[in-house]
């Protein structure tokens, strides 16, 4: 069975991957994006080792809204918490929300797109109707109305895997509302892939629809899914930051958006506390920018349609 599906001989596949990596890593944007991303992933992986446990109003050490100094490299907030401590812990929360939301949206988007393109007919018609709705309505607008209601229904307290329930609500809502773009692209790719000979061959051998989709079509969709996945993460960060800024985040596990919301409520802008509102914003900007750069570089590498300029 497996012999039938391998398209490249093993060495050829390794070479293809190597060539891809070589071209991808030569892109300046990809380099910047990857370095930046690795930095934030390391920070998010071990916040306790880097800056100690998350400070609260009770164990805060500094003055109120103190500017950066040797002791507090990024100053303090309105209750005396160290801003560096807050944004390092915020990195873990923001990145978790963005990445998990992206996983959900990629799974939903690929499933819907693949089923739609593969089965065609009324399945296609109805799935695309639904996709159209989510395509037209921006994820932020949908999340803005759905999140408060779901929070009201589920409650904010309770923990799942060490994260507050309200964060899971945000993750799910963002994931379930931002998949339409992926679904459209996956569908159009599936439409062309399913006409290829190797799909017919698999069908003749007696593979089921599910196994054709998972084993033969899905591997060929990886480039599109990866390139768009990076852009979905950037979008998810934007939406999460905006929602949390409007007060839908969780103050007990503050993401960067929640920190910005706290800064706004404390009047940091009119008090001139640039360190307090600057730090979380710079982090959100850098992470989202590096995902955009990586997404663009992936897209460029997979679509080498770069012709000379006249």
């Amino acid at each position, binding site marked *: 069975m497996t012999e039938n599906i391998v398209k490249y001989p093993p060495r050829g596949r390794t070479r293809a991957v190597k060539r891809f990596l070589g071209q991808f890593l030569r892109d300046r944007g990809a380099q910047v994006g990857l370095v930046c991303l690795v930095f934030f992933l390391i920070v998010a992986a071990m916040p306790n080792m880097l800056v100690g446990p998350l400070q609260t109003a009770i164990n805060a050490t500094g003055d109120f809204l103190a500017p950066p100094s040797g002791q507090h490299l990024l100053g303090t907030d309105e209750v005396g918490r160290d801003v560096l401590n807050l944004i390092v812990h915020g990195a873990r929360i923001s990145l978790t929300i963005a990445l998990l939301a992206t996983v959900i949206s990629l799974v939903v988007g690929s499933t819907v797109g693949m089923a739609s393109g593969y089965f065609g007919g009324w399945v296609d018609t109805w799935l695309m109707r639904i996709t159209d709705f989510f395509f037209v309505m921006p994820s932020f*607008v949908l999340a803005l*109305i759905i999140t408060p209601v779901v929070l009201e229904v589920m409650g904010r307290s309770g923990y799942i895997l060490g994260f507050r329930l309200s964060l899971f609500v945000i993750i799910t809502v963002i994931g379930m509302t931002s998949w339409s773009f992926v679904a459209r692209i996956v569908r159009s790719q599936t439409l062309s892939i399913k006409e290829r000979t190797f799909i017919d061959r698999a069908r003749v051998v007696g593979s089921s629809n599910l196994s054709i989709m998972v084993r033969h079509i899905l591997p060929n969709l990886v480039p599109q899914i990866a390139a768009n996945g990076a852009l979905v993460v950037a979008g998810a960060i*934007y939406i999460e930051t905006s929602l949390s800024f409007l007060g839908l985040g969780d103050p007990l596990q503050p993401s960067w958006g929640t920190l*910005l919301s706290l800064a706004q409520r404390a009047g940091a802008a009119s008090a001139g506390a640039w360190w307090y509102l600057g730090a979380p914003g710079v982090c959100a900007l850098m992470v989202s920018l590096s995902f955009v750069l990586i997404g663009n570089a992936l897209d460029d590498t997979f679509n080498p349609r770069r012709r000379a300029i006249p």
Partner: protein
Amino acid sequence: MAGQASRNFMSRRLGLALIRAIVTLLIVATLNFILFRVIPGDPANMLLAGARSSVTAEQIEAQRQNWGLDRPLFPDQVVDYLWASLHGDLGYSFKFRGRQVADLIFERLPATIALVGLAQIIAILGGVMLGLYAGWRRGGAIDNIATVSSLALYSTPAFWLAMLLIVTFSTVSGWLPGYGAYSPSASIASVDRLLDYLKHLALPVAAVALGLIGQYVVVARAAMSEVVTEDYMVTARAKGLTHRQMLMHHACRNAMLPVVTLITLNLGYVVAGAITVEAVFAWPGIGGLTVEALNARDYPVLQGIFLLLGASIVAANLLADLAYGILDPRVR
């Protein structure tokens, strides 16, 4: 004959777009209805909650009948709700007791339109031209600067930009006000008042416009750099046209297509995007209302805003479809 056929085709296209728009709006309204009813607790209990101790069960039951809550959810209540929404009856606000949601929204709409409209005009003038030029001179100094800064602007949350603008131009330098729409001391004299309003408008407009500029530069540049590789540009050059003629007659017209589509689509989206910016400046528009409603869990107002955003997005999509049909001769 050909004209007749193409006109038929156009009207069919528009008809389909119109049906799609209506269906989308119906889904938005239905979602509104479902979300509100998912919240635990009966609406009658919720509305009378403040006076629970002094309200008897019979009174609640009477009120339920009065509001039609005793009838089946589907189809009776849904149809009632959709019918009322269609007539502009969006119910009453929780927070602003006794005020109609529709009135609240229409009161706030002009401030948002002023903010978003002005920002849109500035972004179109600045962003599109810069993007087209950057795409035309790909790899040049201006292109490099424009690409990097527009990508950065594109990934920056607009409300954070707004906070930075306040710190720089309001708190530190004191040039412009960073809060509200009018100074408390402003006189009633019309010219002074207008100037005061414009001063307050400056920073919010800048924040929204900068975000839009990032988007327009990215798209206009991509469109233009696609166009310059097309065969007809080679033909144009072979005909001996000057750069200026090539740019004006061939490149710009073709590159404008995706840009115009984006601009029209944005007409619907920017209202939503401006919500967070308005929250930063306490701008008395739809965004300010959204934040107040979110904090007070004022669901009727949130529903009304959702309907408004949905309607503006759907309308913008319809407009984009129309514009595309007019601009692209291949669709005609």
